């Protein structure tokens, strides 16, 4: 594994990807009810276009982007709108959501939708079509893709990086996407290249997915200037800045976007779904999701319509084991713990983990012994030890001004290695919330 391109620092937690990596994705049955929050992306929540009682068909737009950074929401199943109400959201808050009673008699065929051939669309109009389809980054951040593909004019992009790292342990949805939909990924790359007006793309894949590397190499179109780049297996290799550093050797300036150095990163699953928009007219209504962990009876990879409730997913996967202890949306390093089985799956939910007691053991928090391990793993070269001390003392302004809290990605490497089990990234997250409140008041 050494000698491969990578970034400095980082950690290598047990991968646990073998649980689901070999399981082909299957279509998830449509549930009785779908809950579609208006906020499934970074930015302003979408504006609902339907009202209770409306019958909608799968793929219909039911909420439109409200503002520059926002994204449309589409019906992920045919049925009747029950209500638009506050519903538990995976973020832990209540959020306005469209409740749809799924029509049990519907064949769940999408309403035919005419989409222009992407080759015929003007470069600058491609992102509009992508926006209309409600595409957001599926790597986890859920940033609206049409905004990303429209970078500031003074910061031209010259390299498209396709992110197939999937550095979070357990998750295999990107892995399955590359194995099952390589042609869609490549079509998505073509569309993104055309939208950006550039020609060069690099696909970064961690070396623990040799079959995906092989598949992407085998299916690479000969007319496309694309390189499949194996990368060292190390968390957080899939973070934008880390991937760019590994592939180009360049660091995104602190506080700037990747476009500052001419790079744009797009997740493989995003690419595959961009292709689907133009190939079959399907907006972003479902994706491959990994259900894993030793707390679930039947782990697997499923194509699940967004809005399916956590409860339905767990039931479909055979239920929880006796020692199930924690349910997480996302990977174990950055995922969100879930308190309510009624929360719906969102566009950016790449995985659902049910961790057993043994997998998420918690030990007592001990005093910091200044061992410096957190500094040795921080991919951003922060001083988490100092930051932790400042956060505990609630010296938030100093934390931001002197210790560069804003640069922290909350990747969790420091918390992961801390031998005293100090919840560093949690402290930093809490400090950010407090700072936001301070700036508001």
């Amino acid at each position: 594994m050494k000698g491969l391109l990578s970034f400095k620092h980082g950690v290598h937690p047990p991968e646990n990807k073998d649980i689901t990596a070999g399981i082909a994705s299957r279509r998830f049955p449509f549930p009785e009810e779908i809950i579609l929050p208006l906020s499934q992306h970074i930015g302003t929540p979408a504006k609902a276009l339907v009202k209770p009682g409306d019958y909608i068909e799968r793929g219909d737009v039911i909420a439109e982007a409200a503002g520059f950074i926002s994204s449309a929401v589409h019906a992920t199943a045919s049925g009747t709108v029950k209500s638009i109400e506050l519903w538990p959201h995976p973020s832990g808050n209540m959020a306005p959501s469209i409740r749809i009673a799924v029509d049990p008699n519907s064949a769940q065929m999408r309403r035919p939708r005419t989409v222009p051939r992407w080759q015929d669309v003007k470069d600058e109009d491609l992102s509009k079509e992508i926006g209309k389809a409600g595409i957001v980054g599926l790597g986890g951040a859920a940033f609206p893709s049409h905004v990303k593909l429209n970078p500031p004019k003074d910061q031209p992009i010259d390299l498209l990086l396709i992110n197939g790292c999937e550095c979070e342990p357990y998750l295999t949805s990107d892995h399955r996407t590359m194995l099952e939909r390589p042609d869609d990924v490549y079509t998505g790359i073509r569309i993104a290249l055309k939208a950006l007006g550039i020609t060069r793309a690099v696909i970064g894949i961690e070396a623990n997915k040799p079959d995906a590397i092989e598949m992407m190499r085998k299916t690479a179109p000969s007319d496309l200037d694309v390189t499949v780049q194996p990368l060292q297996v190390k968390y957080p290799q899939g973070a934008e800045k880390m991937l760019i550093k590994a592939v180009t050797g360049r660091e995104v300036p602190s506080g700037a976007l990747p476009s500052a150095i001419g790079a744009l990163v797009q997740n493989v699953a995003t690419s595959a779904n961009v292709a689907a928009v133009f190939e079959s007219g399907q907006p972003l209504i479902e994706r491959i999701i990994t259900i894993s962990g030793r707390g679930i009876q039947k782990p697997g990879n499923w194509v699940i319509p967004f809005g399916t409730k956590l409860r339905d997913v767990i039931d479909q996967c055979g239920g929880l084991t006796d020692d199930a202890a924690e349910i997480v949306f996302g990977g174990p390093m950055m995922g969100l713990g879930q308190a309510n089985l009624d929360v719906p799956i969102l566009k950016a939910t790449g995985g659902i983990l049910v961790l057993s007691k043994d997998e998420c053991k918690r030990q007592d928090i001990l005093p910091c012994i200044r061992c410096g391990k957190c500094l040795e793993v921080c991919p951003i070269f922060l001083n988490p030890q100092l930051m932790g001390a400042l956060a505990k003392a609630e010296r938030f302004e100093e934390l931001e001004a002197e210790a560069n809290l804003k640069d922290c990605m909350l990747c969790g490497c420091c918390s992961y290695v801390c031998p005293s089990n100090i919840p560093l990234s949690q402290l930093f997250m809490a400090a950010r919330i407090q700072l936001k409140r301070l700036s508001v008041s």
Partner: protein
Amino acid sequence: MTDSTVKITASPHVRSADSTIRIMWSVVISLVPVVAASIYFFGPSAILVIVASVAGCLLTERLFGSNPGSLADGSAMITGLLLGLTLPPGFPLWMAFLGGGFGMAFGKIIYGGLGQNIFNPALVGRAFLQAAFPVAITTWPAKTQQWWTLQGDNFALPFMSPVVDAATSATPLGNLKFGDDPVVTPLFDLFFGTTGGSLGETSALLILLGGLYLAYRGHLNWHIPLSIFVSTFLVSGLFYALGISQFPPLFMLFSGGMMLGAFYMATDMVTSPITNKGCWLFGFGIGFLVVVIRIWGGLPEGVMYAILLMNALVPFINRATQPRLFGTSGKKKKEEASQ
């Protein structure tokens, strides 16, 4: 399982297996061969002195420590073992006990317990003993005839001056520095420990093995001992070559408390710098000070004071060696913005 029994925690949801308690106890384990060697070389006196020092530390931590469970973290045990290993075999037990208690109380607990102290507690204890009982701590009884005979005055009563055996022996450092007929002890003897000295000073080999084990486990920052050795070797080599000092560089490395100090005292995570760059500065400083104290100081040995002095500088070293923030050329964005 029902909804109500699900745990909700912040990410990350998985943790590395490493723990502070495990680090501490593996340090203790790595010291076992060194303790065994001291018993082999010095007889029952060795274990008595070590037990007395450990007892002083554990009792003080139990009585005054921040919480009753703090004994379990192993740090008091380490302090006791390390202090015991810096004492001469014939050392009165009550003094060893007192030294352990003082080191714990004034070297650690007074600052707020584990993780808060500035100075290495074992060395604080030893510095106290050096100041309070200068004679006893520099008395190295000649080897007894039988292994099981006690050395010196282990059972001297408190505040009654220990009656020193007529026959004393010099340590390799003391001999070279103050002896009427200075000789350089052969490296072989220093390395395997067949010389006079404190309990844990004598066998460089076993300390080296223990240190390498800890470094391999990732429980010891190898930059520190390495930088100390490099610096000691270079600085003492320079003075030796110039004819200013009578200490050959390799003798410097393997004599006295150098090995124990470099591998076990200077590497105390709490009292050493937090960045590797800082550790190099720290180690260079210790090496330099050891050589200076050994050549020009009033004492034969300088490792203890060298480490304590550099401990005091750690906050400044930390401030000066903050890592460079990703995507900048300096440690702060502000500097970048003003360019």
